[in-house]
């Protein structure tokens, strides 16, 4: 098992290195960008099947010893990591294949493909790593790949600023995350995940709330949660397949994944769990509203991603049952959101624009894309029997059932979750109607738009299958929770299962909310198909479009003060700190003619004198000492 997990990491990494070195030979690059990831997918499937429902399996070798803290290189496979590993490999392969034709005309395709492979390796490293420090290595390499890929079109100002923003905002979360890992490792005396979890289980964890908050900072940075979510919409300046892979299905899920991985640490800090619920509630409703007002389809999907990730975080906040539900939603969301982004990419290429106003009536021209997108949106909204319906129900059900220390978190997540179900239905319906129905925009330059080439359609079809059907695992009578395993990496026998099948009041209310949201938008749209249903927001539309002006707040609170401080230091260093040195020089010059001549004139002489002087003093001293 561990060997195959290591292979899954090494293969894309090697592919990336070869593609980088291969430079400009396109056929070579194509092969080395697709084949290793296909092999890695096979390896992750082997890991999944071989691991089955067992407990954690770890195999490590020493990477670096330092003062009692050894860093271990190796893999640790649990049910959780096996499942997420498969998701990563599936989406990465789809995106690489999709890019073969989608990025065909890009001059920098080789670099792009190599970076995707490197990213995949880094993400799999995060998923399978047995050591927190090595996990952190993958975590940050992922961030760097994301930075480079967002900045792929570096001639464009929005790509430049988007890439820097993504790196810095996530880094703001990553630094506390690093501190959290350091503190955790120092407390446990080891950075191995097994040791850390064992330590928490056996001896508890001093300073648990502090450590949990630090780790949470990293998670909300990576998973784009309030208030560190501002980078994700701007990250849409990257190529669309990248948005599908990194900014929808995999990297942004890493934050949620790490919380699920280190869940016992969070369980030890109930206050932090409630904080998590509050962050999730703010994020999911706020970004769903923002999604409703966006005019760029990629930004609709971006805010939708932020909102869906908040469901996962919310699920994690309501206790162990919620953890299973959150991971379920992570997997389902990974499939349907990648599908949505790739389909949106096809539509963008054909329409020649990201703007909703440039689209409309596409259903006849792009029937396959239309169907794929419909499946994806149904899953997103939570139309019964689609994957997203099952997984969202699981989260809401866990929130409904939350008791004891999780009751408050459960209530918060439940209310905001149900509200967001309605909002999700509204923005998804708006997107669907504006893209595929209604009148064809007159300003469009090209009337002969046709369906995309096959390499782009095959990934859409492949991803449609799990987006539609993956949810049925919830009916497996607890099989899913025994696949994922317990929070400590222990095996969960089928008997001790947590049921995640939809049931009870939440399902009914959620269906009602869906009908309200979707129906409302449909009614507005029917009155005037040319108008934007977002107009119902009235004066609030602007506010939602600019996502409640949080970018401006961030600029005012962080960016401007930092700039001012930098100017201050720039001034200080030349005018004040250095002044005492010059002052000393002036003072010395005032000492007398001799010194002045030595200083301004023959410096070598001065130096020689000083050097000899020092030696003489030394000699005298040494003589006295003897």
């Amino acid at each position, binding site marked *: 098992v561990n060997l195959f997990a290591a292979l899954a990491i090494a293969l894309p990494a090697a592919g990336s290195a070869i593609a980088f070195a291969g430079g400009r030979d396109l056929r070579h690059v194509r092969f080395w960008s697709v084949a290793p990831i296909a092999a890695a997918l096979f390896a992750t499937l082997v890991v999944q099947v071989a691991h089955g429902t067992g407990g954690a399996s770890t195999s490590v070798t*020493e*990477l*670096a*010893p*330092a*003062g*009692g*803290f050894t*860093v271990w290189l190796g893999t640790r496979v649990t049910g959780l990591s096996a499942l997420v590993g498969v998701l990563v490999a599936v989406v990465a392969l789809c995106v690489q294949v999709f890019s073969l034709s989608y990025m065909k005309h890009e001059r920098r395709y080789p670099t792009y493909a190599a970076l995707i492979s490197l990213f995949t390796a880094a993400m799999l490293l995060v998923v399978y790593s047995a050591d927190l*420090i090595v996990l*952190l*290595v993958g975590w*940050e*390499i992922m961030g*760097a790949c994301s*930075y480079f890929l967002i*900045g792929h079109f*570096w*001639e464009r100002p929005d790509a*430049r600023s988007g890439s*820097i923003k993504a*790196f*810095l905002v996530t*880094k*703001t979360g990553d*630094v*506390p995350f*690093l*501190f959290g890992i*350091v*503190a955790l*490792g*120092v407390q446990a005396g080891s950075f191995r995940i097994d040791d850390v979890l064992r330590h928490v289980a056996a001896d508890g964890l001093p300073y648990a709330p502090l450590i949990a908050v630090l780790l949470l900072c990293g998670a909300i940075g990576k998973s784009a949660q309030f208030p560190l979510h501002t980078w994700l919409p701007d990250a849409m300046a990257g190529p669309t397949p990248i948005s599908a892979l990194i900014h929808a299905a995999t990297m942004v899920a890493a934050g949620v994944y790490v919380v699920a991985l280190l869940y016992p640490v969070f369980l030890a800090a109930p206050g932090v769990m409630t904080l998590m619920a509050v962050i999730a509630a703010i994020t999911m409703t706020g970004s769903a509203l923002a999604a409703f007002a966006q005019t760029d389809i990629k930004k609709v999907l971006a805010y939708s991603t932020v909102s869906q990730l908040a469901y996962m975080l919310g699920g994690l906040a309501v206790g162990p049952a919620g953890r299973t539900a959150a991971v379920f939603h992570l997997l389902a969301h990974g499939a349907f959101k990648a599908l949505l982004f790739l389909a949106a990419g096809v539509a963008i290429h054909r329409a020649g624009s990201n703007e909703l106003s440039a689209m409309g009536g596409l259903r006849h021209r792009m029937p396959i894309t239309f169907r794929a997108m419909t499946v994806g949106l149904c899953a997103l909204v939570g139309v019964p029997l689609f994957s997203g319906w099952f997984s969202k129900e699981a989260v809401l059900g866990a929130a409904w059932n939350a008791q004891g220390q999780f009751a408050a978190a459960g209530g918060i997540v439940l209310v905001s979750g149900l509200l967001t179900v309605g909002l999700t239905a509204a923005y998804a319906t708006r997107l669907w109607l504006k893209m595929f129905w209604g009148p064809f925009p007159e300003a469009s330059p090209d009337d002969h738009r046709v369906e995309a080439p096959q390499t782009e359609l095959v990934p859409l079809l492949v991803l449609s299958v799990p987006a539609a059907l993956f949810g049925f695992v919830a009916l497996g009578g607890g099989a899913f929770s025994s696949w994922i395993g317990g929070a400590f990496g222990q095996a969960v026998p089928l008997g001790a299962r947590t049921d995640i099948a939809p049931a009870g009041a939440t399902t009914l209310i959620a269906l009602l909310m869906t009908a309200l949201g979707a129906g409302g938008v449909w009614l507005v749209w029917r009155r005037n198909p040319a108008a934007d249903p977002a107009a119902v927001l009235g004066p609030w539309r602007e506010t939602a479009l600019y996502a409640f002006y949080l970018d401006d707040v961030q600029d005012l609170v962080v960016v401007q003060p*930092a700039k001012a*401080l*930098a*100017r*201050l*230091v*720039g*001034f200080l*260093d030349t005018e004040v*700190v*250095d002044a005492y*040195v010059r002052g000393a*020089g002036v003072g010395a010059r005032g000492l007398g003619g001799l010194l002045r001549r030595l*200083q301004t004139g023959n*410096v070598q002489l001065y*130096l020689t004198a*000083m*050097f000899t002087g*020092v030696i003489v*003093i*030394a*000699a005298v*001293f*040494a*003589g006295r*000492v*003897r």
Partner: protein
Amino acid sequence: MAALLVLLLIVPAAGLVTLYAVPSALAGRVGAAVGAAVFVLSLVLLPLFDYGHPGRMQGELDLRWVPAFDLHFHLGIDGISLPLLLLTTLLTALSLAYAVRTTARDESGRSFTALLLLLEIGMVGTFVALDLLLFFLFFEIVLLPMYGLIHRWGAGERRRAANKFILYTLLGSALMLLGFLFIHAKTGTFDMVELGRLHGAGMTASAQGAAFLLVGLGFAVKTPMWPLHTWLPDAHTSAPTVGSVLLAGVLLKMGTYGFIRIGAGILPQGAHRYAFTLAAFGTVGIVYGALACMAQARRGGDLKRLIAYSSVGHMGFTLLGIATLTQVGLDGALFASVAHGLITGLLFFIAGGFKERLGTTDLYTIGRGLYERARRYGVLVVFAAMASLGLPGLAGFWGELYALIGADRPAAGLSTLGFHALMAVAGLGMIITATYLLLVVRRLCMGAVAGPSGDRYDPLPDLTRRELVSWTPLAGLTLVAGLWPAVILALADPAVHRLLGGPR
């Protein structure tokens, strides 16, 4: 092995003599050959080194030299000095190779090469000396050639920068020497092995404190520690490329090496007394250096000056690591020292390349779109920037990590809460560091080559073969040390353990 250590000092000296026996046109090549030879010789140390006992002094040679001063010619290496020694010979060899076709090309090439070789003697000697006075001698030898390099081959206000450099560091060394004499007065020996074995025994805590203050000030100037750093930006900005490379790559490490070997190893109680102060100044340096870099990233900023300030920040991390007085913290400081030598050496080479191509290192005059104008050059710039901001997987990360682990639980008796506060400040510095480096990358590498008003940036010559030869080793080692930190830690960790008085 002892013979080898002596050879490392004799070969550059012999080269120096040879320089004046051959036509001056050949001087650059002779220098490059000598540099390569010394590097190869230092590589021979690797198979000879006893990896079973990296904590023990190896290849020891102890000759009485000047009995009147109790000066011994005492050499030897352990796992702490070996990585720094190899870094020194590598950077010197690369610098000499690079200089063949640049500064050493004209008629002054002979003096230039001679100064580099003299510099090498001093640097190598500092890391292998095991006698305090001998250490001091080598430490001082370094100053003169560096002064000459800046003073004669520098740019801009080179004379002022050179004077500032020499006055500052000489003042520091004078204090350091007093400190050494004070140690001798208390213990009766300059022998660093013996003093390390005593580990402070024989000196009262207050005596150690006084001695640490004296030698510490000398090392603090060299490292440099904020606010004693102001000689550094001027010296770097003015120095010729290879001068900057060696100044940042090796000379600054002499300060951290001194802190580790003499501060923590010989004066443990003194170090303990001033540890928090040292950590605090180091941490201020991290943030201060990063902010100063951000100020340089604006219009009118200078790339070399920016890299110089970034050194203040990075060396702040090594000071923080040392000040924790823990094994892991000192490991981090050592790792960070080597990593900084590789990465900042590379950065200064890159800046030097701009100087050579465009005659300037002004960030806004260099122009944009380097990814387009000189692709490999651009990739190298972004690689160095990523390494410098401490991206995990590259060398810059591990030193910071271990320093932080040390700070999370500093040595007994040090304020844990205080160190945690410093960690938070250092974390802020890490974010600012990422900011300015990405701003530099955006300014240089990204952006359209052709402006909207029809103006264009000219294409630049991409990396030349000579540049590839002298720069890629640094990039490669940055990657290797980043992916496999044990290459340094396996040597350093046991040696640090012993240095801190652990059982041997």
